[in-house]
């Protein structure tokens, strides 16, 4: 693990923080998704059109991607060695950042555009 002493235990603690945060956020997301009456475009676009939904969606997405990156990093550190490890972690981080960016754009567009 790079980052010097203390970074492993900080990583461990941060992973607990995102785990606990995801319990309510994940359940909200699942039941919100499963509870949509249909999955037609107007319904799905309208799902994130309300301010509270946008906020919860952004919060859920951020914590989810953060937690995902933490988990993926631990798996890479356990199974990939040498310089390939650094490369894999950098690639995973890039993917997660790109996903966060895409989600932010989508949520912003849905919040502004409503069901258009």
């Amino acid at each position, binding site marked *: 693990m790079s980052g010097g002493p203390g970074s492993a235990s900080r990583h461990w603690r941060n992973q*607990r923080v995102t785990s606990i945060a995801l319990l309510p956020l994940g359940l909200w997301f699942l039941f919100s*998704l499963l*509870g949509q009456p249909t999955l037609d475009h107007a319904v799905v676009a309208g799902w994130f059109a309300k301010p509270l939904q946008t906020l919860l969606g952004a919060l859920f997405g951020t914590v989810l991607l953060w937690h*995902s990156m933490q988990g993926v990093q631990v798996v890479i550190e356990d199974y990939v060695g040498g310089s390939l490890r650094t490369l894999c972690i950098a690639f995973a981080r890039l*993917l997660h950042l790109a996903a966060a960016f*895409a*989600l932010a*754009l989508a949520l912003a567009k*849905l919040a502004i555009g409503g069901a258009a």
Partner: protein
Amino acid sequence: MYTMVLSILHRLSGLYLSACGFLFIGWISAAALGPDAYACATGFFGGLPMRIVLTGALAAFWYHLFAGMRHLAWDAGLGFEKKAARRSGVLVVVLAAAACAATLLLTPAGRFLAGSP
């Protein structure tokens, strides 16, 4: 042995959910792009292979959630004895199976995944 299998399942379900998180972001991006992009995404997600993948995501969600709570309890120093760990392992599997079946059969999107309109 059996505790080890559950532990590996926690990792695998986590990785699977990561991948499905990316799928979800792709799907919601398609919805944001407009009806045409969304229709394309619906074609992709509505087919049988993707419905199986997403049903797997539902199972992985519930397993990862309950198994994660078990790990958090261990971190807090609870239930680490061999006997308690075996019992909580069974509980996690039973709860995950029940929650998965309930959400699949009782919610609109769940029924879509299960193949009944």
